């Protein structure tokens, strides 16, 4: 191949062309309940909050919006019709709650369509007879949506890593079977194995050539797998995290977690204020998770949402 250094310098496309290409290939999506935040495929979002805040509910609502189709038998649902992969690290997922939310959304869509139908006809009574006919078609739509929800449970970090490694091939198989691609990768919750991983002694296993197993190395491995996945298959990653350290607890625990990877070498405390309340918590995830965007490239956009008890149905 002849060398063409000039062509090499000029590049493949202008910035404007690149921007328009990206915005069409990976558009911003405003899905409820996160519709105030512009998110794109390839983003990694962490939803943090104390225990009884509605973090898992946000994941479930977002999942329902993803698995519902855009339109079905003339009724508009406004969903994406794509698959969701849910990693349940907390092992607290309840499928009844998911089906409850899904059924509620389907009923709502039917009811609003029914109302507009009757308004057009000029009648003002809410007659339930046509809706019962529609309820019978529910099951097919419901099962169709549930098939797009893929779920796996992990009981420790090693199972989590193995599942991440296997995720790509599994999602390819399911995509071929169902004809749609994956849009969400949900992790509930990312700090579930924190205490167990912390207790891992940083000892070499199987000789000095093997990598040490420690909190940092496990976190890095997880981050690496997610980055690999994002390169092969762009998805939107949503992770919940329970904030467990209050403001007044001792600092040694959090400090030890950062180790020598943290550039500041001191504790990291974050504050967030929502409607005048201040919520302080200590960051306990290793910095390789927090610094994920710097490892991959400037296409990634790392956002955080701090919750303090939001109300959802």
């Amino acid at each position, binding site marked *: 191949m002849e060398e063409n250094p000039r062509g090499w310098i000029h590049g493949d496309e202008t910035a404007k062309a690149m921007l328009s290409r990206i915005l069409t290939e990976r558009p911003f999506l405003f899905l409820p309940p996160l519709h105030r935040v512009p998110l794109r495929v390839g983003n990694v979002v962490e939803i943090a909050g104390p225990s009884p805040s509605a973090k898992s509910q946000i994941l479930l609502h977002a999942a329902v919006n993803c698995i519902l189709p855009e339109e079905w038998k003339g009724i508009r649902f406004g969903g994406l019709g794509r698959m969701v992969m849910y990693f349940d690290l907390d092992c607290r997922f309840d499928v009844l709650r998911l089906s409850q939310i899904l059924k509620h959304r389907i009923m709502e869509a039917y009811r609003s369509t029914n109302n507009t139908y009757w308004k057009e006809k000029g009648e003002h009574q809410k007659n339930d007879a046509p809706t019962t006919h529609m309820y019978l078609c529910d099951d097919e739509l419901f*099962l169709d949506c*549930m098939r797009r929800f893929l779920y796996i449970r992990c009981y420790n970090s090693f199972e989590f890593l193995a599942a991440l490694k296997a995720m790509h091939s599994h999602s390819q198989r399911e995509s071929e079977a169902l004809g749609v691609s994956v849009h969400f990768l949900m992790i509930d919750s990312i700090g579930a194995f924190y205490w167990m991983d912390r207790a891992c002694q940083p000892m070499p296993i199987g000789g000095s050539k093997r990598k040490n197993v420690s909190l940092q190395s496990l976190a890095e491995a997880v981050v690496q797998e997610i980055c690999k996945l994002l390169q092969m298959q762009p998805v939107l990653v949503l992770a919940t995290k329970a904030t467990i350290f209050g403001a007044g607890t001792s600092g040694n625990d959090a400090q030890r977690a950062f180790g020598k990877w943290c550039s500041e070498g001191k504790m990291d405390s974050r504050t967030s204020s929502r409607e005048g309340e201040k919520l302080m918590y200590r960051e306990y995830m290793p910095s390789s998770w927090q610094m994920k965007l710097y490892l991959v490239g400037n296409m990634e956009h790392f956002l955080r949402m701090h919750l303090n008890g939001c109300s959802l149905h």
Partner: protein
Amino acid sequence: MIEDWHQPWLNGVELLEDSNHNKHFLPTGYEGIDVLLGGGLCEGQLTEMVGPSSSGKTQVCLYSAALVADKHFGVVMFVDTCNSFSPKRIACIVDQLSSSFSGEAKERRLKRVMSNIFCHSVFDIFALLDVLHQLEFKLKQQVKSGDTKICLLIIDSISSLLTPVLGGKGSEGRLLMVSAGIILKKLANEYNISVLVTNHMVGGEGGILKPALGESWKSIPHVRLQLTRDQGSNICNVSILKHTFMATGRTAKFVIHSRSCSVQDGRGR
């Protein structure tokens, strides 16, 4: 292959089927609680009961154990950490349940119920983890056969095992707590067991009582119920602190029957 290293992938339809076929509700025997929970204790879930002392937690545990053993749902395993298990009380309850039976039939029924309840006494967290690991091992080996399978695991109370190891600057306590939580949820999910644990309350800010075991424990149980009892009364209040699909704050009342019952001697009459 890598498939051996992780749990199998499921989709929503398979999850629903599993929930409908395998995860039944076990009644506690107290109508207020059962109606509040939509049927009772759910198999596959870890239910926690929190309350100050003498608020009825042990009574609920004993009653559910007796009822579940009596109604052939399966075997009950009662892990007793504070000597609260009382065979006399179980006998009383079975007596109440079988009040229309004759003496001989009552004896047989009591024997059957007692043989379906296994009681283990443990006094520290390591013994508990040991018991749970042994149970997991046994369940893996066991061929599924009818109603001899365990369906209810009660730990009364788990907080008396965990509070001595929590606290202080070390993280070993939280590690033990989280490990216990993970094993309990794994047993619940994989073997369709309902796990019921009790927790006590400690003083919080401003003197208000709050559940013990701290922040890390809050995200472990599926369902958290709070029990209170008015002084000198038989009526207990139960309210939902956390539930996987019901709104928190819902409350109900239930009545604990008086403890007196006719004491029968060994031979029965």
